[in-house]
């Protein structure tokens, strides 16, 4: 007792909060050394001190679990089985992954720990690891644990949405670890879109509610972010505007202009043959008439085509539309190829519920 007080005083003398965890770790290391030397009477106070509500230093979850496990193990060696079970259960309730190393603990301790597992129900879910997931070749893994046999349902929910889909529904016989894999694909067959997701684990004990166990169901969740990564996509070509297309019919006003041009040719030829020609020599009216007649014919023919379709422009426009469609199809094909190479960047996100 005096040594415990001395140790506590020494630890209390260490300055600052930054050393809080170090202080707890120091005491736990000291306690573990004492346990290993089977100086159980000296180790017990140290573990109890760490677990005490009056412990003034910061204690992590893992340190509490370790303290409970060693305290339980030490108590069992001191023939205090019930007390040992209490501490084993406390460790398991805090961390369903808690376990005793068979190479370092006695069969009696292991048997007691198993008994504790049967008497308490807890599930655990390891944090999601950051991973680059190629849905065509790999899978990401969720590691879960239960203290004993349980019916388990693991499902993925898109954060903020009600919909979810199961990735595992089944039994975990005897408890322990289980790995659940997910390839990043939704039940629809599509890749999971970018966003925040939660892996939700629901479990029901198959052991029931034996004495000492007050809980038969448990749930926990881990959040993670999914980000799709793919090469930049190309934009498709914009629709052809009227400025990009040729007029497909002859319009009235140009047709009237064409008629005027044809008539102008005729008038010009006749003027050359009359006004411009030497009055004494006379003009070649026959030649002028021939050209004038052709001018009028072309003008009238052009005028007559107003409102009619212009097959050459229709064909040219069809060609332009076909070219655009082909270009867009090619762009879509290249985009599809790039999307097919999409990988998912998985990263743990803040948030965890039990």
């Amino acid at each position: 007792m005096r040594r415990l007080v001395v140790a506590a005083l020494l630890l209390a003398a260490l300055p600052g909060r930054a050393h809080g965890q170090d202080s707890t770790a120091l005491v736990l290391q000291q306690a573990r050394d004492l346990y290993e030397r089977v100086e159980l009477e000296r180790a017990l106070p140290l573990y109890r001190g760490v677990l005490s509500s009056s412990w003034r230093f910061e204690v992590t979850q893992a340190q509490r679990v370790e303290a409970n496990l060693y305290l339980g193990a030490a108590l069992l060696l001191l023939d205090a089985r019930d007390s040992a079970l209490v501490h084993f259960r406390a460790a398991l309730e805090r961390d369903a992954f808690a376990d005793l190393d068979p190479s370092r603990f006695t069969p009696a301790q292991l048997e007691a720990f198993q008994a504790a597992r049967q008497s308490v129900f807890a599930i655990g879910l390891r944090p999601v690891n950051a991973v680059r997931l190629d849905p065509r070749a790999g899978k990401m893994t969720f590691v879960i644990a239960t203290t004993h046999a349980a019916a388990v349902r693991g499902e993925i929910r898109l954060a903020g949405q009600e919909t979810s889909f199961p990735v595992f529904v089944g039994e975990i016989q005897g408890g322990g670890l289980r790995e659940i894999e997910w390839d990043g694909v939704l039940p629809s067959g599509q890749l999971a879109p970018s966003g925040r997701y939660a892996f939700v684990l629901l479990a029901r004990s198959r052991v029931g509610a034996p004495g000492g166990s007050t809980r038969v169901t448990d749930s926990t969740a881990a959040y993670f972010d999914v980000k799709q990564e793919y090469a930049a996509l190309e934009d498709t070509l914009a629709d052809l505007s009227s400025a990009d297309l040729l007029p497909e019919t002859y319009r009235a006003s140009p047709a009237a202009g064409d008629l005027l041009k044809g008539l102008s040719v005729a008038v010009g030829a006749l003027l050359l043959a009359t006004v411009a020609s030497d009055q004494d020599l006379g003009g070649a009216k026959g030649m002028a008439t021939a050209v004038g007649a052709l001018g009028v014919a072309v003008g009238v023919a052009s005028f007559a085509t107003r409102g009619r379709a212009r097959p050459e422009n229709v064909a040219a426009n069809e060609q332009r539309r076909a070219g655009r469609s082909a270009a867009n199809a090619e762009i879509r094909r290249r985009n599809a190829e790039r999307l097919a190479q999409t990988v998912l960047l998985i990263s743990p996100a803040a948030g965890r519920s039990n």
Partner: protein
Amino acid sequence: MIARRAVVLAALFLLLIGPRPARSQSPWLVSGRLALVEERVDAGFDLERFSGVGLGLEVERRLGSRFTIGLGGQGATLQPDASGDLDRRIGEAALNALMSMTPAWGFYGGLTVRAIANDAGRQRWLLGRIGAEVRPAFTGDRFRAIGRLGVIPISSVDGLSPSSLAFDGAAGLEYQQDRWALKLVYGLERFAFTSSTGARRDEQFSTLTFRGGIRLR
């Protein structure tokens, strides 16, 4: 003298406004010509009229987007209307240039060397002309109307003083496809010479020319 000054000024004007840089060289256009040629002459005695058919060849090349030059030749045999006159043979070579200010109009100019001969003698002509040409397109750009009017400030003819009045004009139509072009043009050249004896001599050439050409790639 005035005529030469006009030619020089016109040449300077053409150089100043200059052709635009060529974006791409257009293909050559090689054409054959079939022409009805009519010559009317009044040398103070009576109206003499000769007519016949001429054949010719012309090569054109577009330089840049505005400038087109052409070299052509034509020969024709003209028969007189009056039975007492002799047949005339006309041969000519011409170097022409057209500078388009817009697709619808431009300026033209050219030099023509012409020889007119009959069994009794031969006369040599040298003509320099300049003028304006309009070429408005019909809808679709296949057909173009052609109208031109210009002066012939250089008119040097053996045995005659330079013409006091010399001009030319034309009206017609042109049809172009990608590879070939057709043209029908009525042209007029009118001259008023003074002979060495001081007598007035009016001459007028009228032509109805059909030209068919193909573009070389």
